[in-house]
């Protein structure tokens, strides 16, 4: 067991030590990718394990981010009306902004709001047995609704610009390297906890119910489980992860806008997981980091044609690594095991004796 897991621990150790060997800029990039990795874990849970393909996780990410950002914006405005409200003709802080002056409320809303929305939507959707691509595209419709509303309600949300230009968090300057490092380490800790929790989930009987649902929801029903409850739970859990990711993202990147909860980011989230290997939690994390790393790398080095590389990467993964990056590792291990089995079989191969009548 330990032998099998040492790579995980090494990986997380490397993340913890990153502040020692990465420049400030690279560290902030990595911090951003780790937020993405949190979303990826959630997507792996619902997609890889339960077979629910959500193309709408940008919304949960965005809601978490906005909850945090509202607090930061109020703190940055120092009691005055946020700048965008001023030029949108709002002259009083809307009532639903008020509570976000309290950091506790802001932080807890970053989890609760996405979870409530996820629970509400998924309860009806799953109870009415909307499945497969119907669910996927329905989740996309939700993205359209939210993004359009967030853009349209500029006076409350900052419109396309979103919320930005923060200065401090709990009084600490957001731009100071120390704050950034603390936030980074917090991100790693959160990611690790999500990973461990999800791993525990998927390895328990609960995880097997999820896989059974992926395999055949109806059969699960005829074993006496109510798949709706399970799906709502795991879907909301992934929304919670995305919400936390959003909050950490805002703290580190200093910006949230509707564009980041849109269709394209939502699809990209799924792509990270696919690249890493959809039914592997560590694969999801690695996929998020590798895909975004590749995106940054290619676009820094080939700003004109980096899309060709990124597109090529996706195609290559599909064609050559059907189970994603982690699939390579797994299949190597499996092949080793199989080689052994086959050798045994061959040695015990019996001579054929055919009776003829």
């Amino acid at each position: 067991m330990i032998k099998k897991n040492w790579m995980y621990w090494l990986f997380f150790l490397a993340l913890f030590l990153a502040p020692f060997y990465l420049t400030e800029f690279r560290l902030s990039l990595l911090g951003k990718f780790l937020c993405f990795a949190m979303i990826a874990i959630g997507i792996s849970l619902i997609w890889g394990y339960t077979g629910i393909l959500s193309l709408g996780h940008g919304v949960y990410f965005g809601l978490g981010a906005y909850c945090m950002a509202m607090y930061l914006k109020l703190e940055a405005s120092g009691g005055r009306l946020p700048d965008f409200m001023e030029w949108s003709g709002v002259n009083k802080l809307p009532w639903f902004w008020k509570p976000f002056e309290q950091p506790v409320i802001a932080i807890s809303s970053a989890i609760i709001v996405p979870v409530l929305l996820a629970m509400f939507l998924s309860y009806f959707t799953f109870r009415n047995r909307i499945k497969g691509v119907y669910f996927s595209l329905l989740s996309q419709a939700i993205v359209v609704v939210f993004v359009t509303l967030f853009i349209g309600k500029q006076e409350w949300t900052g419109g396309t610009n979103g919320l930005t230009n923060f200065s401090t968090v709990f009084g600490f300057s957001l731009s100071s390297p120390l704050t950034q490092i603390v936030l980074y380490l917090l991100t790693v800790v959160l990611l690790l906890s999500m990973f461990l929790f999800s791993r525990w989930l998927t390895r328990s009987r609960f995880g097997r119910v999820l896989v059974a649902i992926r395999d055949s929801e109806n059969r699960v029903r005829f074993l006496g489980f109510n798949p709706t409850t399970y799906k709502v739970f795991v879907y909301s859990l992934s929304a919670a992860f995305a919400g936390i990711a959003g909050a950490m993202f805002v703290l580190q990147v200093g910006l949230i806008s509707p564009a980041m909860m849109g269709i394209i980011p939502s699809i990209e989230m799924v792509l990270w997981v696919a690249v890493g290997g959809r039914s592997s939690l560590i694969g999801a994390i690695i996929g998020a980091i590798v895909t975004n790393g590749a995106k940054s790398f290619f676009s820094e080095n080939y700003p004109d044609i980096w899309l060709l590389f990124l597109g090529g990467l996706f195609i290559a993964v599909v064609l050559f690594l059907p189970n994603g990056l982690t699939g390579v590792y797994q299949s190597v291990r499996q092949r080793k095991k199989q080689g052994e089995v086959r050798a045994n079989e061959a040695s015990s191969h019996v001579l054929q004796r055919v009776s003829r009548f």
Partner: protein
Amino acid sequence: MLSVRNVTAGYEQSVVLENVSMDVQKGCVTAVLGRNGVGKTTLMKSIIGLIKPMRGNIEWEGEDITSLPPEQRVRRGIGYVPQGREIFPTLTVEENLLLGFEALPKKINSSHVLEEIYELFPILKDMLHRKGGDLSGGQQQQLAIARALIGQPKLLLLDEPMEGIQPSIVQLIRDVIMKIAKEKMVGIVLVEHSLDLAFSCADYFYIFDRGIVVAQGHVSKTSKSDVQQFLTV
């Protein structure tokens, strides 16, 4: 007309058939017997081409067809009724039947062929416009057999064709099998669990156990009890 030579075949993780050889003659019903999981279906799939053998080859009318895709084999006159029916669930019964003609080079006399089929399976005629997937289990099985017959195969692979069919129709199908074998000189491979049934219509038999042929012979020269010993544990 069909000879399977030393075929070893299986799935990604496991070898199921090992070094299997088998011959099927024109106008003969060849029964394939064996307990569950010994590889009968795997053999059928290898013959039709859904599984590529790892070793060995398959000859059909003197031609090596080991590397041909299924559709080529079908067009050379091999018909297949898979275990589990494999009806196209959202196509109508009629469309399912019409797809049987794909095996033939041109649609000759399609209505005449269909009439014959309806005579055999009257129930299908009543349900022409129902979706294939809505039929009952036995109805689907009849549809699957009918669909294969439409292609007028020279060799017919039947993987447990009687599963889920009511007794009176089982008798009917058995008669049909014997009739087309004798009258149209069609070769038939019949996978069947019921020894009685198999022996009541087959000419030759093979018995499998764990992927190898453990016994074979002429039905007429063998007693059921001799065979029985291979089928019990």
